[in-house]
C-alpha cells in the first residue's frame, strides 16, 4: 500500500525547495506595539525565506505572535524593524498579490456569497471587463461547490461553507501568495478534514504555483499540508525556535501518511518542541493513576 512512496531525505527536500525562486523574504523583522504599560514586543528578529509554491505552517502557542508575523507579511501590520519582501517588492501595505483568509471568515454580512467574492475581484483585478469578472467569480464558486448557494447571505451558511467562501474569495483574486490565519480553527474535525483536501485540490489545480502560509495550532494539520513547519517560541518577543522539514511525498493521503515512520517522527519532534512547556508546569501537579 505504501511500498511505492519514497520518503525524501531532508537534504533532497532542501535541494528541491532551493531550486524554486524566492517568493517571500522576511528580513530581521521585529514587531512591537505601544501599550499603556510600555512597548510590547510580539515577535523579534525573525528571518525566513519562503520559496514559490511552498506551503508553510506557522505553529506555536496562543499569543506567541504567529498571527502578528502573518499580518506583517500581509501588510496589515508594519514591522517596527526589518522588512518583508514579496516577489521582490518591499511590503508597505496590503496588496492583491497576497490573498488573505481570516480566522473568522470575515465575510460582509449584508452581501450574498456571490457579491462577497465579486467585490473582492472587482477591487483587485484591474483591466478586465465586468463579464470577465463575473466569469471569475462563477468559476471560483464552482471550485468550492458553492454555486447552488451563491445567493445566500453568510448568516444562512454553516461554518465550513463560510470558510469555503472566504477561500474562494482569496483564490478568486489570483494572488501569488495565500495567507491563511487559523483558517480551520473553528470547524469540527470532519469538516476540517475535507477542507484540507479541498485546499490542496485548489493548490494543485493551480499547478502548485501559489505560496501558502498558514497559521495553525494543529500539529496534524500542519504536517498533512506543509512542506515546512515553522515553530515559534512563546511570546512576548517570540523568535523562530525550529523549522521542521516535512519530507512526505505528495499527493498525501491522510489515512496512509499517519502510518509512515517519517510522519510519526515529525509528529514526535513537534510535540516535544511544543509540549515541553506543559511538562514543566505540570511538575507540581499530582495525577491520579
Amino acid at each position, binding site marked *: 500500500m505504501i511500498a511505492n512512496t519514497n520518503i525524501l531525505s531532508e537534504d533532497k527536500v532542501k535541494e528541491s525547495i532551493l531550486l524554486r525562486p524566492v517568493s517571500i523574504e522576511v528580513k530581521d523583522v521585529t514587531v512591537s506595539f505601544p501599550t499603556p504599560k510600555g512597548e510590547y514586543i510580539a515577535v523579534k528578529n525573525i528571518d525566513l525565506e519562503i520559496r514559490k509554491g511552498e506551503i508553510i505552517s506557522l505553529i506555536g502557542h496562543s499569543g506567541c505572535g504567529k498571527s502578528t508575523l502573518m499580518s506583517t507579511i500581509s501588510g496589515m501590520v508594519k514591522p517596527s524593524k526589518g522588512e518583508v519582501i514579496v516577489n521582490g517588492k518591499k511590503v508597505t501595505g*496590503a496588496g492583491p498579490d497576497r490573498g488573505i483568509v*481570516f480566522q473568522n471568515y470575515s465575510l460582509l454580512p449584508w452581501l450574498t456569497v456571490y457579491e462577497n467574492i465579486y*467585490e473582492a475581484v472587482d477591487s483587485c483585478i484591474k483591466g478586465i471587463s465586468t463579464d470577465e469578472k463575473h466569469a471569475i467569480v462563477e468559476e471560483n464558486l464552482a471550485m468550492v461547490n458553492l454555486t447552488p448557494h451563491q445567493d445566500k447571505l453568510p448568516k444562512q451558511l454553516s461554518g465550513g461553507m463560510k470558510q469555503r467562501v472566504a477561500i474562494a474569495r482569496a483564490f478568486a483574486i489570483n494572488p501569488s501568495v495565500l495567507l491563511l490565519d487559523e483558517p480551520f480553527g473553528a470547524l469540527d474535525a470532519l469538516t476540517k478534514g475535507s477542507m484540507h483536501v479541498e485546499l490542496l485540490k485548489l493548490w494543485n489545480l493551480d499547478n502548485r504555483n501559489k505560496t501558502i502560509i498558514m497559521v495553525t495550532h494543529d500539529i496534524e494539520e500542519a504536517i498533512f499540508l506543509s512542506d515546512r513547519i515553522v515553530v515559534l517560541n512563546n511570546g512576548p518577543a517570540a523568535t523562530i525556535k525550529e523549522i521542521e522539514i516535512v519530507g512526505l511525498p505528495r499527493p498525501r493521503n491522510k489515512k496512509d501518511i499517519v502510518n509512515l515512520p517519517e510522519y510519526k517522527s515529525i509528529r514526535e519532534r513537534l510535540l516535544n518542541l511544543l509540549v515541553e512547556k506543559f511538562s514543566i508546569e505540570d511538575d507540581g501537579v499530582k495525577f491520579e493513576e
Partner: protein
Amino acid sequence: MDKSNQQLGAATLKVVTYRTGRFLYFLLGMSFMLIIWHVASLSTDGELPGPIQTFSVFYDLVSHPFYDNGPNDKGIGNQLLSSLERVTKGFIIGSVIAIPLGLIMGSSTLGMNLLNPMVQVLRPVSPLAWFPIGLVAFQSAQTSTVFVIIITSLWPTLINTAFGVSTIPQDHKNVAKAFGFSTFKYITKVLLPFTLPHIITGLRLSVGIAWMVIVAAEMLSGGVGIGFFVWDSWNALSLEKVFSAILIIGLVGFVLDKTFKSLQTRYSYDS
C-alpha cells in the same frame, strides 16, 4: 400531506389565539383607563369632560376634517396636515445635515474632537429655546417652527450615525484593506450598510421627538397646526377638543414610530 396541513392549521390557530389574546389585553387596558377617566370626570361634576362627551366631540371633529372657515377656523385634518408638513420639512432638512455630519464625526478623530463638545452642549437644550433665534433670523413664525424642528431632528440622528460609523468592526475594515477596496467601495459596501440600521434608529428617535416638539412650537407660533389647535381649544374652554387632539396626536405619533420601526426591521441584518 394531511399531517402537514394539520400542523399548518395548528400553527395558524396559535397565531390567531396569540393575536386575539393581545387584542383582549388591549381592550381590557383601554376599558380600565376609560373607567378611571369617567370616574375622574364624575368627581369633578363634569368640569373635566368624560369619555362620552369627548367622543361625541371627537366624532364631530373627524367627520368633517377638512372644512375651512377662514384663518381661525379650520378642520382638524387641515391642522394635522399643516403640522405634518412642518415636521416633514424640518425632519428632512435636519436629517440631511445630521447624517453627513455624523458620518464625518464617526469616521475621523478630528471630526469627533471638533464636533463632539458642541453637540454635547447643544443637545440637552430644549429646541424651543431656538424659537426666538428663528424669529429674528427668518422674520416668520412658520419658518421658525420649521427651524425648531430642524434643530430637534439633528441630535439623535447625528449621535446615532456617528456611533454607527465608529463601531464598524475591525474585521470588516480588514476585508476592505486586504482586498484593496476603493474609498467609494468602502463607503457603499462597508460603511453605509453597517451604519444604515444605526442611522434609521437615529431617524426614528428624531421623528418621535420632532412630533412632540411641534405641538409646543405651534403653541408659540400660532397659525394653523395641531399644537395651536390645542391651545386655541383651551382658550375656547373646550377640554373635549383638547382631549380629542391628544388622542389624535398620540395616534399619529404611533403610526410615525411604527413606520420607522418597520424600516428598521427591513434594513437590519444579523452577522
